[in-house]
């Protein structure tokens, strides 16, 4: 199917709000995933460690990757192109595709269409088109070839004449696979092919398809199809059965993203269960919504590797976020949400872990937690995540269930050294609201800590909520001067452990000349 692909190079940099000519990099899991042209000039490359990138380019602005932000920022471009064709398909933020057959005939050929697409996209981007270069367009027989044509770099648009797609692909080296299809995990295959002497797409396409499938499995067969200029998907010719479509009515209408996204998550699970029951996997899903003003919104999302429930839910969240935040988006709340599996194929299977991995208990617990989220709201159910920090409350933070993503780098890092960290054992009760406490010495004078960290006198009593307790043992004070380089976040505190006569131990903190009970060793 002849396809047009529009790519915005280094989209995450643009979406993160980089200025033109600013050295800027987006990092994920401590590695650079996108860099602005100015940063590239300073030899900041994709895959570089963050520290290495910062040392090569000291003025580098580093921002954490956020696919939701990227998708939200890209939605105006997709909305602008809706004027050309109704079936725009997104693979990932910054890249969209559609079949050219109808639009191309209407607008007078591929060239005229591509010019129009570039003009509309540039207009939608406005000033941001200057940040990482203008959007590029490619047209070819398959989406894979069209993306390569767009990225080939010579001009802003490149149209591969019908029938010449194989010839266009042949000289391209195989390491482009992971760049164009990052969802497929083709790195290992590319590495193996290179060691076997297969270094270009043409060489791979020249091999007999059955031999490639026999040696490299389904993933190899897919790569072979892509390299030979054919659609990579092994599609069922049958139309998608209607009963696979899942719909949810929202009453009251969802005005907020998290409300709609929560419903979408349940829909995604249901869709996946229905597909699973038939041994099918979905490679393209249409996310459709209707608003209370009768507007109908729809967008296609593709994932070559087959959409898992989490992947569908994530894309639905991005899409809803994009619609609800966009100035040209819907005018009312969302009343109906529908997921239509647009392309399905036989599921290639996913083996449950035999040792480790998710167990049945995990699945059940996840379902129960989702149910409680439905009762109390998304933020009410959270999982702890270990972070770094000196105070007990900083060492573990709570992340709402469903928002945590595996493989994320924890910041601040838990395994970094934290000099002056409150020593183990840690308090089992960390008060959410600090209680003010009066700490007095033997003569009834308030105990203070000097700027040099010296205590004015040994504490004799503490008074909290009007109750006076004798101090039987104490330790400290330990002075913290954290984030002194940041005027807003700077904190100067002193901590002290006290044991009262009743055997209760508290962690007290002194800040702005007041003592507070921060935590209790309960």
């Amino acid at each position: 199917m002849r396809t047009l692909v529009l790519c915005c190079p280094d989209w995450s940099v643009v979406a993160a709000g980089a200025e033109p000519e600013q050295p800027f990099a987006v990092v994920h899991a401590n590695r650079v995933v996108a860099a602005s042209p100015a940063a590239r000039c300073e030899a900041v490359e994709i895959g570089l460690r963050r520290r290495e990138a910062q040392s090569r380019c000291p003025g580098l602005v580093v921002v954490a990757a956020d696919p939701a932000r990227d998708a939200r920022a890209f939605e105006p471009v997709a909305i602008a192109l809706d004027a050309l064709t109704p079936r725009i398909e997104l693979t990932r933020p910054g890249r969209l595709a559609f079949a050219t057959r109808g639009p191309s005939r209407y607008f007078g050929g591929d060239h005229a269409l591509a010019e129009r697409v570039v003009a509309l996209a540039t207009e939608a981007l406005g000033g941001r088109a200057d940040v990482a270069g203008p959007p590029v367009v490619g047209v070819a027989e398959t989406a894979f070839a069209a993306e390569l044509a767009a990225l080939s770099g010579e001009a802003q648009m490149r149209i591969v004449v019908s029938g010449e797609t194989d010839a266009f692909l042949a000289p391209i080296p195989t390491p482009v696979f992971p760049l164009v299809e990052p969802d497929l995990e083709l790195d290992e295959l590319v590495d193996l092919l290179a060691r076997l002497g297969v270094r270009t797409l043409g060489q791979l396409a020249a091999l007999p398809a059955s031999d490639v499938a026999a040696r490299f499995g389904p993933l190899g067969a897919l790569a072979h199809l892509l390299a030979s200029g054919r659609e990579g998907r092994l599609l069922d010719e049958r139309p998608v059965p209607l009963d696979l479509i899942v719909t949810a009515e929202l009453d009251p209408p969802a005005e907020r993203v998290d409300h709609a996204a929560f419903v979408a998550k349940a829909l995604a699970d249901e869709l996946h269960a229905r597909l699973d029951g038939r041994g099918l996997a979905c490679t393209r899903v249409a996310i459709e919504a209707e608003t209370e003003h009768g507007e109908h919104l729809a967008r296609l999302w593709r994932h070559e590797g087959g959409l898992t429930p989490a992947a569908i839910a994530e894309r639905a969240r991005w899409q809803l976020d994009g619609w609800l935040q966009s100035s040209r988006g819907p005018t009312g709340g969302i009343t109906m949400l529908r997921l239509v599996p647009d392309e399905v194929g036989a599921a290639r299977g996913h083996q449950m872990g035999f040792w480790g991995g998710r167990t049945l208990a995990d699945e059940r617990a996840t379902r129960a937690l989702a149910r409680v989220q439905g009762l109390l709201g998304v933020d009410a159910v959270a999982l702890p995540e270990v972070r770094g920090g000196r105070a007990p409350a900083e060492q573990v933070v709570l992340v709402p269930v469903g928002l945590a993503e595996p493989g994320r780098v924890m910041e601040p890092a838990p395994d970094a050294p934290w000099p002056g960290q409150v020593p183990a054992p840690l308090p089992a009760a960390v008060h959410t609201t600090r209680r003010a406490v009066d700490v007095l010495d033997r003569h009834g004078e308030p105990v203070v800590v000097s700027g040099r960290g010296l205590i004015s006198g040994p504490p004799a009593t503490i008074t909290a909520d009007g109750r006076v307790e004798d101090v039987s043992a104490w330790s400290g004070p330990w002075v913290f001067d954290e984030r002194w380089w940041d005027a807003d976040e700077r904190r100067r505190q002193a901590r002290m452990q006290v044991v009262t006569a009743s055997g209760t131990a508290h962690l007290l903190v002194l800040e702005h000349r007041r003592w507070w009970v921060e935590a209790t060793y309960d």
Partner: protein
Amino acid sequence: MAGGATALRESALRESALRTTALSERVRPVALAREQVLPVIAPLTSLLPQGLIRGTTVVVDGTSGATSFALALAAGASQDGSWIAAVGIPWLGLAAAAERGIALDRLAVIGAPERNDWATVVAALVDAIDVVLVAPPKGGMADARRLAARARERGAVLVALRTSGALTVDLRCTVTDAQWSGVGHGSGHLTARRVTVSATGRGSAARVRTTSLWLPGPDGTMSVCDEMDECAEVTCVVHPQVVHSHVVHAQAG
């Protein structure tokens, strides 16, 4: 020749009989009672020799150390792959939970539900989660009995902190006599705590069991206190540094 054949047949018969017995041993329903308890960590076995019986409600109260003990109660199940949920305990020290042996990737923390929703939320959790830590609201509750029935049917354990509210208690653990060591007058830091825990329940568990526990011990782990430790403890408050070495010595001994 015929005798030899008979002997052979007899030995074959005997062997097959043995094999049948061995097979019946293997296919017979294995101890179901074991399925009905959740494991507890080793230092708690003297207090709870059967483990944590599924479907029961445990309340942990007393002085300093009750929260740590409640976490320790759940630690055995958590390490065995069970999920733990904490409902309406926003002050729970999660770093301390990890120290007490709870796997944080199987711990769900749920914000305090409204009073009317409380039983519904906890009931939804006992469906799938083995140990639910709760701080029940004070006063009567219409659904308390239904909740207990649900927990019994699903085999979940409710651990109530401090107060049992309207829940019927099957086992009560009381933490008393907390004594800290490691901290003096401006020196050292809290390292170890000795507590006395008594457990009493209904029915067969009615007899009071009492144990002295390190919660935690000087090495950071929980263990049962023996008499040697107690000797070391006496001088604790006065000279913590000296006592510290005593404690280590006692451990080594």
